[in-house]
């Protein structure tokens, strides 16, 4: 395998400018909504008079909180230029806490977009499984929007969402709308329920037997904690979905976003360039090796 695994410069050019790759651009918070006790969704617009940031679903940016630091965040916005940049952020440390505390009008820095996103064209003419765990729903959300715009060109679509508890479910209202549509099968399950939850309880892979899909012509996108993605991918392959049609959004310590710092390596892959979306045919053997 040679550097042919890198996206070509032509492809690179189509998914976001390289300028603004190393220096953050000033963006402002245009809107803020709390999703759960530790997760917020922010809408960001350019604050430097420059062009809006267009990212392909599955790409990420490096979001900067002044004086604190940067974190990689998957984009949750659609890929048309008109929409603001949307990020759903969980407060897990100093930087994300600062980002989650940003109010409308506050400034945040944005670098990117970076990385290889979801292979959306693979959904055309196929059944689609979108399997999200926890915060993993955020990078899959723009895929759902994209699919809805081309619904007729795509087969059965199932959105399976696993969450810790009912209180941790993201985009609850939007998921409810989705579940009400006759042309999408959307099911939410939780690991642990509270009294009053009348939905599914159990691991997200337990929802697979009830999803409608023809394994031979199915493409699956999954995002969530690595262990959940690994088991999901294996369950899909066991069900007959070809490994190269199972795509995972991998995470490692993205830092520079441009393939220089070396911190996002997973074996031969530099996840900021070769990922974060990779197929299970390549990932499978790598994920089975501990501490790779």
């Amino acid at each position, binding site marked *: 395998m040679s550097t042919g695994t890198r996206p070509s410069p032509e492809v690179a050019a189509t998914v976001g400018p390289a300028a603004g790759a190393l220096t953050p651009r000033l963006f402002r*918070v245009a809107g803020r909504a709390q999703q759960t006790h530790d997760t917020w969704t922010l809408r960001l617009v350019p604050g430097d008079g420059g062009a809006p940031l267009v990212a392909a679903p599955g790409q990420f940016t490096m979001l900067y909180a*002044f004086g604190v630091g940067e974190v990689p965040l998957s984009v949750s916005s659609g890929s048309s230029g008109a929409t603001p940049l949307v990020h759903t952020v969980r407060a897990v440390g100093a930087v994300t806490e600062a980002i989650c505390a940003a*109010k409308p009008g*506050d400034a945040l820095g944005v670098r990117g977009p970076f990385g290889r996103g979801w292979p959306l064209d693979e959904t055309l003419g196929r059944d689609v499984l979108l399997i999200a765990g926890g915060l993993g729903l955020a990078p899959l959300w723009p895929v759902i929007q994209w699919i809805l715009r081309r619904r007729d060109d795509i087969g059965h679509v199932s959105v399976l969402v696993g969450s810790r508890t009912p209180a941790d479910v993201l985009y609850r209202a939007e998921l409810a709308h989705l579940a009400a549509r006759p042309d999408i099968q959307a099911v939410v399950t939780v690991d642990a329920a509270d009294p009053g939850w009348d939905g599914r309880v159990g691991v997200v892979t337990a929802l697979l037997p009830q999803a409608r899909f023809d394994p031979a012509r199915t493409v699956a996108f999954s995002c969530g904690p690595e262990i959940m993605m690994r088991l999901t991918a294996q369950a899909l392959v066991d069900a007959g979905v070809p490994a190269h049609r199972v795509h995972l959004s991998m*995470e490692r310590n993205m830092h520079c976003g441009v393939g220089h710092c070396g911190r996002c390596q997973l074996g031969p892959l530099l996840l900021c360039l070769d990922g974060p979306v990779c197929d299970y045919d390549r990932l499978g053997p790598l994920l089975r090796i501990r*501490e790779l």
Partner: protein
Amino acid sequence: MTAVPSGPIDAACVVPPAGLGVLIDALRKRGYKVVGPTVRDRAIVYDEITDAGQLPVGWTDVQEAAGYRLERRDDEARFGYAVGPHSWKQFLLPPRLRLARIQRTVDGGGNGAGGGDDSAESVADRDGFTIEEEPPPTTRLALIGARSCELRAIAMQDRILVDGRYPDPDYTVRRDGLFIVAVNCHEPGGTCFCVSMDAGPAVRRDSGYDLLLSEILDGEHRFLVEAGTARGAELLAELSVLAGTGGAGITAPGMGAEAEDVGTGPAARPVTPADRAAAQAAVERAAARMGRAVDADGLRDLLAANLEHPRWDDVADRCLTCGNCTMVCPTCFCLTVEDVGDLAGGEAERWRSWESCFSLDHSYLHGGAVRGSGRSRYRQWLTHKFGTWHDQFGSSGCVGCGRCITWCPVGIDVTEELAAIRMNPAPGDPVP
């Protein structure tokens, strides 16, 4: 007026050791900061040198796994040693570099829409920040004494940081202004294995040097100086002129009688076949005296297939995860970027510094390190350097300089580790 030979990339001459002083002066007069080998703290390191007397005249190094010391030579060789703990990467990719200054700004009050309305698309300008990128360095560097292995390492980093998809602005500027005086090795070290990695000891013609020195100790102590670029040829011509007055003219091969007599000093003289033969012989002797060897064939696949080999447990018992190897390695270039704020919260600086894959921070994710054990970190380093570097950057990451072997405090020898894995591959490991 000096006539500069036109387009003669095979311009060459022979100078005595004093010619090096002339060379250094000429470079400094052109505004270069000259860095080269010098003795300091009982090692040969790379630092600024202002005259040729600061070169390690008559010194050699004795290198072994976890061992380095200097010894006196019988002669006054200027380059009679292998490589020390420094590589040129500290000049092209500084260990600490400020990238930007970030100032918090307080804009004038907006139009009162700053009430935190979640649905508002228009936002009042409130606080913000401005980013002032660090201006590019203006000092141009001239390297004296770059070895073949080191040129290979620089070329590797060029491919990523200059010619890659995202060029690094600072590195690109430093690299662009760089003047390289390369040196053919004639004294390899006890841990050298550049021959195995096809990275030396002879400097290749296409390595990108401006001038190439071959030190000859047989008979008269002299240096064959060859130009590799027009810039190098220009300096070479001046070298001849400045070395003295009178004497036979230097002509570049092929220029014949049309060439102006550019003059020579009593020191500089044309190259003879005997000079070339002596230079060639010195480098061939070096190639035959490598301290180490490794079978580099198929290492990418070998390592990919042996990620659970028992040897990793073995080396983990010895490795201190100190990261010395990554610091001295000329190709390692992992980096970290940190924002450092002032206590008042008004200004922050973004600093980039060297990072090592041996640090727990390197693979930090979600509250812990992905590579928590020393075993996994050593495996990461070795399999990256000799294996996945191919996947990521199109070649091996090792140039066989041996620094990692010499400077490992417990003497872990990469050639030994690789041989151990090759001799006894573990069956049944998954092959990616």
